[in-house]
């Protein structure tokens, strides 16, 4: 979900649609319960969830897909911030009544629907999504920890993992005949350059029966018309073109990026909240940060786990410095798909919260249940940054949160005179504030 909650309604309303007003054509779908939002102390929870108003072309696309006689494999694509995730949620809800269960292939490692950031996952959903505007964490059927928030660092591994997930789904849910499930594939919004090439490969491999292309008004951001992934006039699938719900002409790329970062932090915060049973209330980030600091972690011997760095080479002497206070994927070495270059299935994420080198112990916090954890013998380190809000709480500030860091040129430097050392100027102001 890429729109902020408050703006959805305005955007939907203001979209100059040639069709009659949205409310006339489609029944307003409201999210019945405003889900407990992430507790960012900075952002006050927007209280009443505004109703999602479904544009008419979205509604008819949905109606069309759910009336398909065969079991559809639907791929939703389009540029960033056009409503792919929201449409996928609507589609999932409308497919559920007929099929009972729906497969959901989550391929956006930056903003996954049901998993924490950095994961590629396959879900089988049997429960309608109540909150159409916010992603909710759910247990994955199968998951890979890709370890970065964009596929750009390693497209090959990304596509391989994705194909493995798809193959798994096909073998389990589309061949046996006993139970054939529809599949929704939500794709990343990276549709230019390498991102486009990867989307093409994805489309060619998956061969969806329906492709939903969401288009914004900014033509050059959109994907090409037609079946752009096919070379000649092969028999392609049905392509449904719909307009983005928000015609946002003011989308500033930098603004969106910040949104993404903040959202990832909130998702991780949500994820690690699961370490606590529901009767413990960790409402604010501060409470969660302190609760995580005091939670007795799991301990595991160095000799019982192997550390794998997914995207960097780390000298052997430095592994503990690399690992301390970072997020890792937990995986089982014996549970690896039997293909070349496959990374093992991931059972969940953890925080390496401390390392006792003398005793040879790693301390790990994770919501993965302890029975499941016993077979975990791999720690996959990616580049998923630990949320800063979890590292600083009064009296319990992590050593990795430092004051007086001078590593950027700031606005002050640019307007101050007589500069010899521009990185020094800023004093007392938080760098992290500027980042947020």
């Amino acid at each position, binding site marked *: 979900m890429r729109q902020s909650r408050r703006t959805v309604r305005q955007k939907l309303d203001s979209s100059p649609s040639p069709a009659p007003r949205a409310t006339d054509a489609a029944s307003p779908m409201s999210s019945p319960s405003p889900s407990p939002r992430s507790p960012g102390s900075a952002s006050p929870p927007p209280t009443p969830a505004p109703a999602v108003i479904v544009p008419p072309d979205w509604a008819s696309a949905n109606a069309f897909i759910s009336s398909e006689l065969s079991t559809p494999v639907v791929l939703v694509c389009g540029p960033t911030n056009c409503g792919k995730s929201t449409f996928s949620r609507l589609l999932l809800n409308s497919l559920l009544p007929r099929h009972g269960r729906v497969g959901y292939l989550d391929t956006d490692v930056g903003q996954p629907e049901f998993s924490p950031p950095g994961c590629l996952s396959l879900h089988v959903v049997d429960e309608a999504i109540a909150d159409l505007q916010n992603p909710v964490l759910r247990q994955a059927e199968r998951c890979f920890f890709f370890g970065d928030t964009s596929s750009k660092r390693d497209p090959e591994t990304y596509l391989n993992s994705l194909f493995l997930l798809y193959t798994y789904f096909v073998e389990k849910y589309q061949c046996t005949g006993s139970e054939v499930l529809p599949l929704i594939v939500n794709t990343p919004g990276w549709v230019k350059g390498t991102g486009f090439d990867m989307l093409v490969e994805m489309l060619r491999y998956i061969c969806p029966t329906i492709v939903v292309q969401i288009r914004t008004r900014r033509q050059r951001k959109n994907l090409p018309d037609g079946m752009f992934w096919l070379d000649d006039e092969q028999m392609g699938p049905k392509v449904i073109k719909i307009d983005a719900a928000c015609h946002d002409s003011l989308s500033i790329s930098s603004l969106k990026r910040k949104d993404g970062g903040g959202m990832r932090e909130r998702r991780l915060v949500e994820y690690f909240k699961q370490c606590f049973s529901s009767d*413990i*209330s960790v409402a604010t980030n501060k409470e969660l940060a*302190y*609760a995580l*600091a*005091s*939670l*007795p972690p*799991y*301990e595991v011997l160095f000799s019982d*786990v192997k550390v794998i760095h997914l*995207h*960097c080479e*780390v000298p052997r*002497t*430095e*592994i*503990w*410095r*690399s690992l*301390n206070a970072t997020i890792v994927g937990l995986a089982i070495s014996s549970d690896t798909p039997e293909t070349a270059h496959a990374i093992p299935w991931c059972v969940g994420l953890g925080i390496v*919260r*401390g390392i*006792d*080198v*003398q005793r040879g112990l790693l*301390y*790990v916090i994770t919501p993965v249940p302890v029975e499941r*954890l*016993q077979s*975990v013998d791999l720690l996959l380190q990616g*580049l*998923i*940054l630990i949320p*800063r809000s979890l*590292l600083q709480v*009064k009296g*319990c*500030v*992590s*050593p*990795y*949160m*430092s*004051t*007086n*860091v001078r*590593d*950027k040129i700031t606005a002050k*430097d*640019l307007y101050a005179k007589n*500069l*010899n*050392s521009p*990185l*020094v100027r800023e004093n*007392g102001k*938080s*760098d*992290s504030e500027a980042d947020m």
Partner: protein
Amino acid sequence: MEAEETGGAGGAGGHSTGRKLVPWSSWAEWQFVRDAIFSPYPDHAAALRRIAAWRSRGCLPIPVDVTASLVEIMLRDPFFRNGVPSEDKVESEQMLSMLYTMGIMRLVNGLLENPHKETGRSLSELAVTVGVPRILVDIRHEGSHRDLPSLRLLHLAAIKAFDWLKCNYWDSQTKAIPDTRLELSSILHVMAKFMKGKDSENAKPGSKRKRSQKLMSDSIKYVRRLYYTCPSEVVSVLLEFFVLDAPEISETGDMHQTDSLDVNHSSDVQNELSNGDMETIIEKLSEKEPRVLLGILKLVIEMIESLEIKGESYACLPAESSKMKNVCSLVLWIVTNIKELKDSGRIGLVEEIGVLSSDRNAVPSFCLAKLLQKFLSLSIIGEKCITDAALLLIEMADNNNVKEKLRKLPVLSLQRSHKDCTILESRIISSGQGSVESATEKLEMFKLQLRKSENACLAENGPKGLFSASMPEKHNRWSIAKSWTPCPLGMIPCSYSSTAVLPALGVIDCELKDDTIEHGTFEHDGQTETFAYYSQPEKQLDDVNILEISRSPPCEISDLPELTSPLRGKLLVGGLWKKVTEEELLSMKSNMKILLC
């Protein structure tokens, strides 16, 4: 120092409030890398290794990133190697040019791209404003849009870029590192001045007295704020202010009231703060922040341990140096204060700290047990102050069972003269040699028996029975850490003081030793807990586990002999204290593990 300073954040060198995620765990680590690159005797390989680790954490600042790249390229460039032969030299000019160009492009873009986007000003304009050498911007332009710049030009540019980074990042960051020591000592001096004038102050009219009281409480508030920002540093600076060395005393030999802390009152004229003043300050501070005491106690114990190691001799009174005496009496003072705080309810003794406990001053009771173990394992346990401190701890634990048992431990109740000790000592050692060996034999027998029963178990139940019954440890790869105390992410709790410790993160490996030993915070646990491992720290005080040593299988003891010798390096075997070597202890330790499971 001006009084105003107490309220506001210090200027240069002071702490700013904003925090940023960095890949290093302390400024010391950052300085290690800086020195490995820029000092007269650099260790480039070590710096590059460390930066590689930082890079893998995903938040490496651009200036560090580019510095590392430039160092790495220069190391492979024959031009900078000055004919020093090296195996991984890059001879191709074309390749070197590409490398330098890319490094410089990343520097210029990494630094100026954001300001460029924000202000819309051109890169060269911005470069002039912030003092980035123009040649770097030109190389970025040439490299991306035109011919690859010549290697001759790039050498020049690389030197300029390197110098710019040194001056504008490394040096300026060095200046900006908050100096806790300076801040804290300045505030302590303010307090010292105030306390000096206190006696006359009492006679002054109320308004003035009020003002100085306010000054005092403001100062305490300021120290507290510092303590929140960097607890370990504040604690160590506070300890430094105690005059502990006092070498003159022992030399002149005219001081005999060694038990009293007042010893140092007159000893250091230069120092504004007497130990008494420091005690007042710490008492005030610990009313608000009781954990300060635990932090200081931990450091003091470490100090004792290092003194012990320095002393090497485990004679009856290793505490001969005045320093050791001062340190020991400080231990007693701290423990007395902890007890007072506990009695007044400022420190709560709890079974276990809940995940959401709002009481940050709660201390889990297992910490007391561990602390007591620690005291008992110190070789200077015979020292009166330490003994008294241990007794206080026992009292605090408020457990009659343990109290009685521990009182039986002669070291805690008896003070021997020097002479007696030496006699005892020699007796033990002479009579002890043989029985150590017999104890080892006994252990072997136990081991054999255990194996037999294991085999029997295997025969009866098959492999499954063995798996579930006799190897539970192996099965549970992951277990929940026992006796945990809250500590920030990235740190671990100290094994006995319930304070957070930044762990040493070097890989322990004989081959790698040279790479990993460097400055930083080390926990001196491994070397000193020779006795602690007989007991299982996770058990609570109501267990007699502190005396586990006397119940452990290899030594069948009926009663404890009257002894006051230092325990270190000795083992109670067959009712006698025997001197044992580290190796013997280690082998027993490994055997013990088998026995205990």
